[in-house]
């Protein structure tokens, strides 16, 4: 791997959760690129607890599940979770935590916030951050 051809990127995403509605955000590797997932941070900007899940799929249509990267029920309001170095210390499921994940074109990370019941909702300007290495590949 030639390090000069790889770039570090941070996809910063503004996140909005609304009253009693689930949220899903997809990060898909574009055609002509390959990426190595370094980590991510996701927040619950709502004022009620939310179940949060991160899954890796082979394609954007989310047909073939490759791995479950993270799942936790009832993440408290305004709390954040990080991968792979979680700041959470409770005994929750954290499945498949390799040091990095190689992703080819089409590979999709699905970030999910379950519906949290009646709330005022909330937004966070950097509620989701995905950190990865990326490089171009020959087609």
């Amino acid at each position, binding site marked *: 791997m030639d390090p000069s051809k790889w770039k570090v990127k941070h996809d910063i995403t503004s996140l909005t959760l609304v009253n009693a509605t689930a949220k899903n955000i*997809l990060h898909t590797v574009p055609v002509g690129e390959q990426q190595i997932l370094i980590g991510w941070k996701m927040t619950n900007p709502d*004022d009620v607890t939310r179940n949060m899940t991160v899954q890796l799929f082979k394609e954007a249509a989310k047909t073939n599940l490759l791995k479950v990267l993270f799942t936790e029920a009832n993440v408290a309001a305004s709390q954040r979770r990080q991968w792979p170095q979680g700041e959470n210390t409770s005994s929750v499921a954290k499945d498949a935590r390799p040091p990095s994940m190689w992703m080819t074109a089409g590979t999709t990370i699905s970030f999910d916030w379950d519906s949290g019941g009646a709330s005022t909702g909330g*937004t966070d300007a950097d509620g989701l951050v995905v950190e990865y290495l990326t490089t171009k590949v020959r087609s």
Partner: protein
Amino acid sequence: MQESCPYCGKMTDMELKEGVWKSKTCDCGKDLAALAKSVPELVDAKPSYKSKEVLP
């Protein structure tokens, strides 16, 4: 990046503005950016880094 629309449930493209992926109008016609402005903004705790110690 794509996000789910809370009105129609479909995935809609986000747009990159000044380095941040933000919501835009969904195909169903709802302005998700306006929605983002209509709910409370999460304000992270901002600690004071100024020393309370009185130096001699």
